[in-house]
Structure formats: structure tokens, C-alpha cells
């Protein structure tokens, strides 16, 4: 009824390897895309500016991590460090006078180089050992940032980002920032959607499932792992640079510290490994729910006239948020993306599947 599967047949490979195999999915995606385009005119600026914008940029970043963790199966605990490399190189390039378009690419490439250089060393080990080496990368980067004033901008370690300008157009409005973030997120999403259908995507999945089995099939697992690290680092670098250019307006080491790395990993895991829509949901949960729950709890206690200590008030949302993560992972260990998939599957031929039962 909702998905209208009648008449949907895939009789050849080209048709079967479409991104959206069911027209309803495509229509939903188009609708969401149109909503995203119209958002600055519909959504109040508070929500556009403090929720949707960071949500989109972090989603792009989380998709990048999903590439290396979800697709290639390599646990990465130093993702924020890679983002920091991109952010700092792009800002320094822009401050030096390089146009922002190139500055962003420089940021991405710098991240890519450092990310894959590190991967060269780190990929000699696997699994938890790899996770620990990536964690080490995070700490190395933290140390470098807090100890090099020339990179981080003086003894306060805050580096002002020049005004973002793309295609000769200075971007200063809320809607402008939003569209930049939106554009980047759409770009990364399209890339990831297509990744599934390419040989590269399949090779990455083969490496994830069993890397020596993949090697027997002729897939050079080391090469693909490096490629995954390099690509995801590029996405991380540009996302980090955009995060600073459109949202923070200055870079500080705390924005890319170890807990941020863990947060991004949580976004990917709660969202669902190798699930694209899951990354959107995961980022929403990890990034936005604390603030939203905070607002709801504060508003609720105010309207009920309860005298709650501000400290208690601050900790209730944390408890709720923690409980939410646990509950979601208990209900569906494969994450929010799988949860969405379950609902979709249930509705796929509804109500006709009910007749059989």
C-alpha cells in the first residue's frame, strides 16, 4: 500500500543495481531533498542554525567514518584528529589567501595524507590493536595541537576562521551557511550511496568480512584498507573545515578532542554500521538529543512549577540520553538504520502480508 511494489521487476543487472530499487524510496528521498532545499524558508532560524546545520555536517563526517568502520570494518578511534588536520590546514590556507574552494580541498588532502600515512603504520595490526593505534593518533594530535601555538593560534589556542566565500560569493547569512553544509552532506551521501554499487564498495565489504578470504579472491586487502582510510580522511578533513567555517567560526583543540572521536564513533554505531540513513539518525541522536531533552526537561519542570535544583536538572537529560542509547541498542543491536529498515520491511507489502497470517 505504501510502497506499491506491483509492477516493480528487475529483469537485468543494470536495473537491479539501481540506487533505489523501489520507486517509493526514491520518492521519499526526493521529498527529503526538496524539504532540505526549502528548509531555510520553513524551519525557524534557531533550529536551522543550531540543530540542522551541525547535524548535516556531522552526518557527512559520520558517513566518512562509516566508510572505514562500517564498510571496511576498521575500528577508528582517532577520527576527530583527522578532522582537526583538515580544519587547521584549510583555515591556515584560507588565512594565507588561498580561495576557500581550494582551501577546503587542501584541508581534505592534508587529512587524507596524514590519515593514510598513519594507516600505513597502523594497518600492520588488526582489530582492537588497530583501534588502540588510532587512539594513539588522537593523543598525538591532541599533544601537537596543545603544544604548537603556530598551528593553533597563540597561547589561547583559538584560530579565527576567515569569512567563508565560495564561487566569489561571501557567505554570511544563516541560510548561506546552511546551504553549504547541505550541499556537502548531499555530496557525501550520493558518494556513499554509489559506493555500494561499485567494485570498490564490494571489495571493502569483502575485506571487512574476512580479509584473508578477500585476499584469496584477489582483493588486495592492504590496498583497499589504505584506500578506505584515505577516502574517509578526505571526507573528515573537509567536514572538519566546514564545521569551523560555517558553525564554530574559530578552531580550538577542544572541538577535536578524544571525546569527540568517541562521539563520532557512537554516532556510527548507534546509527548502524554501513547504513547511510542510520548515520543520519545516529548523528541526530548523539548530537541533538542531549540539547533537546535538556530543553524539554527544563521546560517541563518550569511549567509543572517544580523546584528542581539546576544541577539535578542538568543531570536528568544525561540519564535519559544514556538510557535511550542503551534501549535502542537493546531493541536493535544493528542500530537505528536497521530499526528503520525493520519498519520499512514491515510496511513493504502491508496490509497484504497480514492476510496470510
Amino acid at each position, binding site marked *: 500500500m505504501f510502497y506499491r511494489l506491483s509492477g516493480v521487476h528487475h529483469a537485468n543487472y543494470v536495473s537491479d543495481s539501481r540506487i533505489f530499487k523501489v520507486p517509493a524510496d526514491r520518492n521519499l528521498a526526493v521529498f527529503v531533498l526538496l524539504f532540505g532545499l526549502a528548509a531555510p524558508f520553513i524551519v525557524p532560524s534557531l533550529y536551522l542554525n543550531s540543530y540542522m546545520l551541525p547535524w548535516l555536517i556531522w552526518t557527512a563526517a559520520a558517513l566518512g567514518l562509516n566508510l572505514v568502520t562500517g564498510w571496511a570494518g576498521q575500528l577508528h578511534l582517532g577520527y576527530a584528529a583527522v578532522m582537526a588536520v583538515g580544519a587547521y590546514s584549510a583555515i591556515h590556507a584560507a588565512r594565507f589567501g588561498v580561495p576557500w574552494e581550494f582551501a577546503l580541498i587542501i584541508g581534505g588532502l592534508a587529512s587524507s595524507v596524514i590519515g593514510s600515512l598513519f594507516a600505513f603504520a597502523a594497518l600492520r595490526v588488526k582489530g582492537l590493536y588497530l583501534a588502540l593505534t588510532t587512539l594513539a593518533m588522537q593523543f598525538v594530535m591532541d599533544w601537537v595541537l*596543545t603544544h604548537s601555538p603556530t598551528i593553533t593560534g597563540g597561547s*589561547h589556542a*583559538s584560530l579565527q576562521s576567515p569569512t567563508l566565500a565560495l564561487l566569489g560569493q561571501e557567505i554570511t547569512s544563516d541560510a548561506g551557511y546552511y546551504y553549504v553544509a547541505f550541499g556537502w552532506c548531499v555530496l557525501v551521501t550520493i558518494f556513499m550511496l554509489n559506493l555500494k554499487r561499485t567494485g570498490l564498495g564490494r571489495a571493502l565489504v569483502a575485506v571487512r568480512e574476512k580479509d584473508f578470504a578477500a585476499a584469496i579472491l584477489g582483493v588486495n586487502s592492504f590496498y583497499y584498507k589504505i584506500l578506505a582510510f584515505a577516502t574517509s580522511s578526505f571526507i573528515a578533513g573537509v567536514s572538519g573545515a566546514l564545521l569551523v567555517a560555517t558553525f*564554530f567560526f574559530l578552531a580550538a583543540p*577542544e572541538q577535536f578532542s578524544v571525546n569527540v572521536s568517541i562521539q563520532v564513533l557512537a554516532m556510527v554505531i548507534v546509527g548502524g554500521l554501513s547504513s547511510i540513513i542510520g548515520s543520519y539518525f545516529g548523528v541526530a541522536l548523539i*548530537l541533538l538529543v*542531549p540539547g533537546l531533552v535538556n530543553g524539554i526537561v527544563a521546560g517541563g519542570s518550569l511549567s509543572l512549577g517544580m523546584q528542581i535544583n539546576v544541577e539535578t536538572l542538568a543531570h536528568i537529560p544525561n540519564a535519559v540520553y544514556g538510557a535511550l542509547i542503551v534501549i535502542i541498542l537493546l531493541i536493535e543491536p544493528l542500530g537505528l538504520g536497521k530499526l528503520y529498515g525493520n519498519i520499512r520491511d514491515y510496511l513493504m507489502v502491508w496490509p497484504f502480508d497480514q492476510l496470510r497470517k
Partner: protein
Amino acid sequence: MNQLTSALAVISMMGGLITGSQVMAEPFKVGVCYDLSKAYTFATPQVSQAAMDLAKLTNMKGGIGGEPVEVIVRDHGNEPQRGIECYNRLSREGVFVFDTLSTPVSLAILPRAMQDERILMQSLVGRGDAVDGTVFDWVYPVGPTYWGQAANDIGYIKQLHDGDLSDVKVGYIYFDYPFGQEPIEILETLAEKEGFELLLYPVPLPGSDQSGAWSKMRRDKPDHVISWMLGGAHVVASKEMQRNRIPMEKYISVNWLNEVDIANIGAKAATGLKRGTNVVGGLDVPLRTEIISELYDTGQGSGPLANTQDVYYNTGLAMYSIIFEAARRAVELEGLPITAQSYKAGLETLEKYDANGLMAPITVTSEDHGGGGKTRIEMWDGETWVPQTDWISAYSDVVWEVVKESSSKYEE
């Protein structure tokens, strides 16, 4: 169509006027976006409680210019994006004075506040060069910067040595992190100027392992140890000092050392310990006494009484006395309603204001947003804090040189 829209506009404007006149007592709001759940919880409960108590007391006395004051406390968990969200949300509710008490969040809000022309109070946190009002029009780090505090500590040591520091060794133990690294530059400049020997002892966060630093210190034998650490790290330091037989008298802490830390060190064991501060420590502060008798004795306190027996509570009272006093001045200057512009003007008329003996007198001008950066050294005598100096601001020329050098880079 045009007529319709203009008619609508007129109606809505009239509506605004009517509701505006009905709600005469539109409160003066302060946005208190604090970290009440993560890294800064060693101080934020006391400070926010002080803010709420002071707001209550001010309202009991008739508010500011007949209007009530309101402090809106929200948690941002020390996360920049949640701080920005808090700032965005509250500024749409008409708040134009913000306080974050968190360096990362203050840094994140600063560019927005500068652009939106809203007041960012950032006493004791954030970038110290924001005291330069010629660059940072809308940022007011009223109180001492870490640079100023470190210079004042050296000023105090100089007093102890009768003005001659040539044979003196000063150790500096600090979190190896921007917070602790900040004063190094100024200490090095002063070491060169005064001829004392500066020894650096970095300690990794969170300061639970300091054994290496202190055993090195036992060998180096510095005459004084200036400490830039927080909370539990002071307790670890005191244990290491006892183990290495370094007398407590040598320890001069940054302002972040409170009664909880003293209790953890042990009131007796902490005898002789010193700290730099910009507020009067202890319970005998007129404002605090008034709050206790007006609010806590009648059961209207904003939190547990224990929180008020803490120097951070006094710090909070000092910060919010300044914030409310500036609002009062704004009303005197330009009347109601208070706007960001008139509030700024009000702040900049504060002269030798000490909130009835609560803190170092501050004089805010359009150039100096820090208010003079005076601190004093207090010593713990086993029961209470004993002031060792007057309110001093030493080497202000050197401090300002560093400030100017750093602030000039902001607009590049």
C-alpha cells in the same frame, strides 16, 4: 496585496505595542549557559547558585529600575555546539548578556557575540586578550586574566624578597594544556626582567600523576611554587609535597582552589598554603551574610547551604554583582528598557566598584574590559584565609604588552 501586507504589519505592530504595555515589568535577563554536568562541575553549582540567590535578593529589593532580574541557567555540558545552541536560543528570547564559565564554550560563542553585538561576560575563562576593549568590543572578562594573576604572584614574591629577585628560583607547575600554558610567556618575560630563575614542571591532565614533577622539584629546590591546576590535582600536589618534604608555604595556587580542596588536603595539613584570588574568601562577607539572613534563614535559598560556604560562591556573587550593577548603571544612564548598547555603557562606568568589600575594586573602561585585573594572595592558616597583600596588579605594562600582541592577531 501590498495594502494587505501593510495592514497586517500595522495590526501586528499595534498588537506588539499593546502586549508591550501590558507586560511593563519585562525582566532583565542574563543567559547563564553553564557546564553543570561535565568538566566544570567543581565550580558551576556554587557560581550558578550565587547568581540565582543574588537575583532573588535583588528582586526582593525591588529589582533594577523597578524591573525584576532573571538568570536563566542552562546546561551545555562543556560542548561547544550545545553552548552555541544555548546562546542562539536565549538570544532569540531577548537575552543580551551571556556568561559561560567554560573556556571552550566561551571561545565558541565569542565570534557570534561580536557579530550580533551582545555582551559576553567571561570572568576567569576564555581568551585573556579579550580584556583589550579596542579589539573585543563586546567581550568583558571582568576580573583577572591568568596572565595578570601570574604577574601578581611574581609581584607578591618580589615583596617577600624585598624587591630583589636575582637569587630566587620560582617553580611553575601546570597542566600541560592551554589553561596551564597560558602564563608561561609572561613568567618568562618577567624572569628575564627581574632576573629570577624560572623552572617549568608540566603535569599531564588530569593531574593525578605528578610524582615526576615533584621529585624533580626536590632536586631543584625552588623557593616558591606557582601552581596552575584545578580541583583534585591540588590534593595530589599536597601529598607529593609532603612526600618530598617541600613545605606547604611554598605553594601559591591559581584562584581555582576552594574549601573542598582544603578539606581533601586536610585543614591542618593545608596550613600555609596560598592562593591568588580576586574575591574575599571566607564567610564574613557582607553580601553573603545578607543573603544567608534574607534567603537561607527563611528557606528561600536556591540550593544547599553548604554550597555557600565555598570561595566559588563568593566568586559567583562577585561576577553577578558586577553584572547587576552594570544594569543599574545602564538604567541610570539611559533609562529603561536596558539595551545591549546601554548595558555596555553601564559596564564602562564601573569605577573602583568592589561590591561592598567582596572583591578587588574594578574599573572598567572602553579600553580595559578586565577592570584592572587586581588580585591578592591569601594564606590558609588552618581555619580561614588570611590576606597576605593588598589588592595588587603588578607589572601591568608587561601584561598589556602581551595582551596587545595577542589581540592584534585576532583581526588578521
